[in-house]
């Protein structure tokens, strides 16, 4: 099982060579409704290397979700450009996996069927998809719940299903928007450890938006801190921790504590808490 998991998706391996998976240049996004104009993002530039794990933190409403949606091609930017896997993003992107704060599962489908939605929508090979779903179910500890309906699952398990669904097609890029925001602290830690392992084993490029500084630092190779609206990138920290991170050891390491404190101060200084 682990063997298949460690083999990187072909697309990712190819693009590994040219280095950059996501290239965001001078992005601005303004929403105009009848009543007002909201500038969600201004002058955002960021490059994400292939296989990199980037965390984004920032106060509520600073445009984190908007940024992910622009990268996914779900929201058009007002100006600026996003290149994903070397191509300019103009519409919804298929080569990504997306996970939201709410699991967004189909209420009427069991765990396995929910995961396989990805395969049905993409018209993937049925047998391959089924095998992959089984792998993911095992990897995320959902074995025994294959047919359980979402309302029969805990919040943590629902998020695991959403994660499996986002990973089913072995996307080279995984975009996650506060995926563990609704979980209790303990479940969240478990999910962090799991996501870390999945990232290492799959080599997927991950962009994770989070409210939790600890989560951002534990998981990220870099942490992007954004300013309140209109959202800009305030600072980008390199996380000077080993690639393979044990949760307990990381949490108590001085490097982790120093960085987390710095980020907390930076976010606090900008007046809001995310």
């Amino acid at each position, binding site marked *: 099982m682990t063997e298949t998991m460690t083999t990187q998706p072909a697309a990712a391996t190819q693009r590994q060579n040219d280095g950059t998976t996501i290239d965001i240049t001078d992005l601005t996004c303004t929403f105009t409704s009848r009543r007002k104009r909201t500038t969600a993002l201004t002058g955002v530039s960021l490059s994400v290397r292939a296989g990199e794990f980037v965390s984004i933190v920032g106060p509520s409403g600073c445009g984190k979700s908007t940024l992910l949606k622009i990268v996914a091609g*779900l929201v058009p930017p007002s100006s600026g450009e996003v290149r994903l896997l070397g191509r300019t993003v103009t519409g*919804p992107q298929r080569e990504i996996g997306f996970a939201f704060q709410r699991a*967004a599962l*189909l209420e009427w489908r069991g765990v396995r069927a929910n995961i396989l939605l990805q395969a*049905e*929508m993409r018209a993937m090979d049925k047998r391959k998809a089924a095998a992959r779903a089984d792998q993911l179910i095992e990897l995320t500890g959902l074995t025994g*719940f294959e047919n359980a309906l979402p*309302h*029969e699952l805990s919040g943590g398990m629902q998020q695991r299903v959403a994660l499996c669904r986002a990973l089913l097609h072995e996307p080279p890029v995984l975009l996650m928007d506060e995926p563990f925001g609704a979980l209790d602290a303990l*479940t969240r830690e478990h999910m962090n450890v799991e996501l870390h392992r999945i990232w290492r084993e799959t080599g997927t490029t991950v962009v994770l938006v989070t409210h939790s500084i600890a989560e951002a630092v534990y998981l990220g190779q870099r942490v992007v801190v954004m300013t309140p609206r209109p959202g800009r990138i305030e600072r980008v920290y390199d996380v000077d921790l080993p690639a393979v991170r044990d949760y307990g050891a990381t949490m108590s390491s001085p490097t982790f504590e120093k960085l987390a404190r710095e980020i907390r101060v930076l976010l606090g200084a900008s007046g809001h808490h995310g």
Partner: protein
Amino acid sequence: MPEVISPAARPAAEPPEPAATTPDDADLPKSRLAQRAGRLLSAAWRPALLLVLLGLGWWAITAAEVFPAYLVPTPGDVANELVTEREMLARHTWVTTYETVVGFLLAAVIGMLAAVLIVYSPTLEKALYPLILFAQVIPKIAIAPILVVWFGFGPMPKVILAVLIAFFPVVVSGVAGLRSTDPELLDLSATMGASRWKTFRKIRFPNALPHLLAGLKVAVTLAVVGAVVGEFVGADEGLGYVLLLASGNLNSSLLFADLILMSALGVVLFILVEAAEALLIPWHASRRQGVPLTTS
């Protein structure tokens, strides 16, 4: 004076009410069948008790001869009427059932199509919604005579009236259901490269079903009203027609028997839609019975 009413010239071709079908019961394990029967019993005893009490009250009033018998018949008279005139009543019940069911099914299909058009096309929404609202607020009794002039005494005008009355709740609930789709699911679907049709079939439509079925339950009871109103205005068969004749002849036993059949028709059709609901959306919060598998 039931002879006044055209006596049952031909025997009822069909049973008066569609037999309550529970297609899935056959392959249920025994325990679940028993469970189901138990649930049915526990659901049925209260209304049954109420019915018995009402019947007793009715019987007491007629026994005390508060009203003359030609105004309020005794339960016995009505029961007798239901038995002796069963062939005639069965035939007319069948006519009304047929009109109601056809009208309801048409309303369900047309209503859902209209809902889809409204949700998917803002232009059509602007064009259709005023029209649909207009069709809804127009008093149906007022258009019934026109329909009879246009389509004659057959089932057609009744079916059309049933459709007109039952259509609105289907559209409204269908639109609400289709609009209630989680926008994140639609975003997700877009990143999966799914076509509109696939998104509709696998996400939007199943998601709309709970709303839609709530609308259909309202619609089916309204369809009965539509058919009966149509029969009032111009018909030579159906429960509405029997009601008019019975009241013209001051035949209160027949009148009450007819009323009972009309209500029974509405109740049976409602229960059938509920059964469809149980089959189609067992997963929905409104129909859950199980306990969570996990707690944390």
